[in-house]
């Protein structure tokens, strides 16, 4: 069967099980767009900006565990993908991006819409390809999907010159196994490593598990819970680790790091053993490395060998698939109680409860934390939430407890504003039966709000909650703490969001009082397609606790208790 390069692309996508791709056409990718008419089984979602396509593919991947696909034209189309690719790279999200390129003969001539896209994306992809021979195309697509989803997942980009898309060859799908000599994702631990880890676990008096995204990526959720329960080890979560352990589980302490639970951070600093599972000791979770968990021995399990001893020196480093390693480890784990240690953590929690704004009467004021916590309450804690970046993101992490994996999607590593709406749309496409809430700030929403049109055109039912504080709130917070309250370039004018949504034909509502929140959730649920709710919250909010960047993890700025004055 003779197929064009464009048809080969789609034929291979079909065999990878791709059902949907997010993209935007243009000259250099047109042959592939034309060929799409012959492949109606692969649905194409027309976005309004290629960044949205990459984030949608990313949201799709994170919600489903499948590879998300974005497609764009050469030059500006491809460069518009860049932020989305970098976001996926930092958060180990499997996406494949396909870009058109100028014809082979024109490469290097500064042709119209030519950009060295493999060069541009080299440091922000797990791997990338420039296809220079059509015979390689099917192999490259197979490899790209395999690389994206295996090992530590990540984005892969395939740049395809236009003349390769139109060239025709006899097509045979390469059924033979993928052979990548330089790529063998690690599997299990050695007996010696398991023994060393067990010894540390059994000796520990104040152990703590640090659970990250890797727990969910490797499917080790059950194993984690089993380890925690059997040895009675408390579990702190990274931002992307939310969902790795049910947050209503008595052993879950909560998030760690810059805006983590005080109890988690204090426990880490006092622990005598850290068991780090599928997390990477990002500076946002460690604070000052010199004073980080000084009295603790450390076990670190990660699939990426380059993560071991990168930021924190560990005593036992295990490179492997977390689930496989946990299956090796669990049979040797003895029961323990750690009652004293767990009590100590409980006391820290009680102290935090006294400070919590949620437990206060705030009169007529509406605070971001209250909105998030009520959204949790009225959605039964069962929604998949997708956040943008800023204060509302941290409030989501603090006030919307999640009970199951992949139910909270957020840009952690890159902290990409504009991620929320498109990623939520991708998540909804992946999980049409789930209730999806995009929780976004007034700032970040305006970075990708053009995707409202996409949501409307495709009737993607996302509930958009704008936490509107009329500020770039998180930056305002830094200005308040560290720049003597010079609020420069953070107060923000916004359009009337309700009218804006209505201009797109999207029903909308504005909430100003706490007692309207329940109604807003009911309203959102009553609308069949996308819906937008603006929550007008207090402008000058602060997310507590806060570990200032680079400070010791236990030197948190805390919310004062009632009657106490601020620091």
């Amino acid at each position: 069967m003779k197929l064009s390069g464009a048809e080969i692309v789609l034929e291979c996508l079909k065999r990878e099980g791709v059902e949907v791709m997010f993209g935007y056409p243009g000259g250099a990718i047109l042959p592939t767009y034309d060929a799409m008419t012959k492949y109606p089984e692969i649905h194409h979602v027309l976005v309004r900006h290629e960044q949205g396509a990459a984030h949608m593919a990313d949201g799709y991947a994170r919600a489903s565990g499948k590879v998300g696909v974005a497609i764009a034209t050469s030059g500006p189309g491809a460069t518009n993908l860049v932020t989305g690719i970098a976001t996926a790279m930092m958060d180990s999200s499997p996406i494949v991006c396909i870009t058109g390129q100028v014809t082979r003969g024109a490469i290097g001539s500064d042709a119209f819409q030519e950009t060295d896209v493999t060069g541009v994306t080299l440091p922000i992809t797990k791997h990338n390809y420039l296809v220079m021979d059509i015979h390689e195309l099917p192999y490259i697509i197979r490899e790209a999907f395999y690389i994206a989803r295996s090992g530590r997942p990540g984005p892969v980009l395939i740049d395809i010159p236009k003349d390769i898309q139109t060239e025709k060859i006899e097509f045979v799908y390469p059924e033979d196994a993928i052979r990548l000599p330089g790529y063998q994702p690690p599997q299990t631990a050695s007996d010696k490593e398991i023994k060393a880890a067990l010894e540390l676990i059994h000796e520990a008096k104040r152990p703590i598990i640090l659970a990250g995204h890797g727990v969910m990526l490797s499917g080790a959720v059950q194993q984690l819970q089993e380890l925690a329960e059997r040895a009675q080890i408390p579990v702190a979560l990274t931002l992307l680790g939310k969902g790795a352990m049910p947050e209503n589980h008595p052993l879950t302490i909560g998030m760690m790091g810059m805006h983590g639970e005080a109890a988690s951070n204090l426990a880490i600093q006092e622990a005598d053993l850290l068991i780090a599972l599928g997390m990477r000791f990002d500076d946002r979770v460690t604070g000052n490395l010199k004073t980080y968990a000084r009295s603790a021995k450390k076990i670190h399990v990660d699939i990426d060998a380059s993560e071991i001893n990168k930021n924190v020196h560990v005593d036992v480093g295990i490179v492997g698939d977390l689930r496989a390693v946990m299956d090796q480890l669990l049979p040797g784990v003895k029961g323990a109680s750690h009652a004293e240690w767990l009590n100590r953590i409980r006391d820290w929690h009680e102290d935090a409860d006294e400070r919590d704004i949620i437990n206060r009467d705030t009169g007529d004021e509406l605070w971001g934390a209250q909105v998030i916590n009520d959204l949790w309450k009225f959605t039964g804690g069962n929604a998949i939430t997708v956040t943008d970046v800023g204060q509302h993101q941290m409030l989501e992490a603090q006030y919307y407890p999640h009970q199951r994996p992949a139910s909270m999607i957020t840009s952690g590593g890159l902290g990409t504003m504009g991620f929320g709406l498109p990623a939520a749309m991708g998540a909804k496409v992946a999980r049409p039966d789930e209730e999806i809430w995009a929780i976004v700030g007034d700032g970040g929403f305006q970075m990708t709000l053009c995707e409202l049109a996409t949501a409307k055109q495709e009737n993607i039912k996302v509930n958009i909650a704008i936490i509107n504080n009329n500020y770039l709130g998180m930056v305002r917070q830094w200005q308040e703490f560290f720049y003597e309250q010079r609020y420069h370039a953070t107060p923000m004018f916004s359009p009337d969001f309700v009218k804006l949504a209505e201009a797109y034909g999207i029903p909308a509502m504005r909430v100003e009082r706490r007692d309207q929140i329940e109604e807003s959730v009911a309203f959102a649920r009553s609308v069949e397609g996308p819906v937008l709710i603006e929550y007008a919250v207090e402008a000058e909010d602060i997310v507590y606790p806060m570990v200032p960047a680079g400070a010791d993890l236990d030197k948190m700025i805390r919310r004062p208790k009632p009657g106490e004055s601020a620091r």
Partner: protein
Amino acid sequence: MPDHKPKKHLLVALVENKPGVLNRVASLFRRRNFNVDSLTVGRTHKPHLSRMTIAVDATRGDAFKIHMNLLKLINVVDVANVSNEPHVSRDLALIKVRANDAESRNGLTLICERYPARIVDIGPEVAIVEITAQEDQVEALINELKPIGILELVRTGVVAMGRGVRILDSDYEPVRPITATSEAKSFEVYSV
């Protein structure tokens, strides 16, 4: 921390012989803020494999990080840090020196006799000395030649190989057809 003082590490990487691989390695060093002393790359006896020798000045911890990050690159087949084992290393230099009087010419000959060096070109004004030796010897020769007058100098950078029967090789054969380079030349310039 078991980090010792920085010292010279020689990392040998077996990489797929494909366009852009050198770029990937160079980009890695820049991105991760690792300093390269020298980097050499050349073909091997297998057409689909090239070999790099990368000399870095690094602590043991950093050398390990570089090692792990190199392995992470999909096109890097294998990596060995040969500084951790008995090995042979060579650097080649061509040094153009002043040789326009009897004193400089005699000096040159005497110095070269004490090194694995030879004069490969000589004229009325200048001579070219070639040395293939361990890096420190090359360094020493350069220092001795300085008083005579070095006019131009080029070095290949270090290449290295572990001693004995520990072989850094891969028996992989590519599954994909290898692009015929002749074909690559004949692309027409289409309208874009």
